[in-house]
């Protein structure tokens, strides 16, 4: 149980490879669920998408789930990209620099997206 909690704590960024593997799966499963819901819901918004989206996102539950989805997507892709770096970049230095770079980019993407969605909702 303590090990399980340790895995949860690091979000897959720790030195522990099991945690990375674990978080990739957790985010994947959650994304499957949320995306199924989202595709189902977005069908009703399609004509005049912008206006309908503005109304739809005002519902707090939709807003929260959408923000969670954004974070899940970016975290899952970040873990995937880090995995590719781990496999194919030999030099430790380049690997470290590119990892920081990608983390930075995904943080920026999360911030802009969440900020925009938040702005639309309020």
């Amino acid at each position, binding site marked *: 149980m303590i090990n399980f909690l340790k895995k949860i704590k690091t979000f897959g960024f720790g030195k522990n490879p099991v945690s990375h593997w674990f978080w990739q799966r957790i985010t994947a499963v959650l994304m499957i669920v949320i995306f199924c819901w989202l595709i189902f819901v977005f069908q009703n918004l399609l004509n005049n998408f*912008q206006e309908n*989206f503005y109304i739809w996102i005002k519902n707090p539950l939709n807003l929260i789930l959408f923000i969670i989805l954004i974070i899940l997507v*970016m975290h899952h892709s970040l873990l995937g990209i880090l995995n590719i770096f781990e496999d194919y970049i*030999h*030099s430790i230095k380049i690997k470290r620099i590119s990892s920081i770079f990608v983390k930075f980019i995904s943080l920026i993407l999360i911030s802009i*997206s969440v*900020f*925009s969605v938040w702005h639309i909702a309020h």
Partner: protein
Amino acid sequence: MKSSNKPLSPHLQIYKPQITSILSISHRFTGVILFFFSFLICLWLFSMAFNDRLYNLINIFFSGIIGRTILFFITFSFSYHLLNGTRHLLWDLGYGYKIKNVYLSGLFIILLSLVINIYLWFF
């Protein structure tokens, strides 16, 4: 340049192409495509919130022939990555390791994502 002692994964040209390896590398490849697509989603959300002109510009671009072709590849990547991802999750749970089942499920998800995309874009 200092390197770690850990060996790298063998580079892709080493392998003889077969359906299993092709599907595996496509999974990564589509993943990277979707990562870059997330930049666009981010820009799209931003423009929807703050810049109507940019939003209209993006919409016009993606209703054109080039934009629609790009979107076709994106939806294909998405459905493929999702289906192959569930295949990976099933493997993690311990199902489908027989080589025959691996081939069958691989073929199945390719066909299924093709059907999904044809339905989505032509009906």
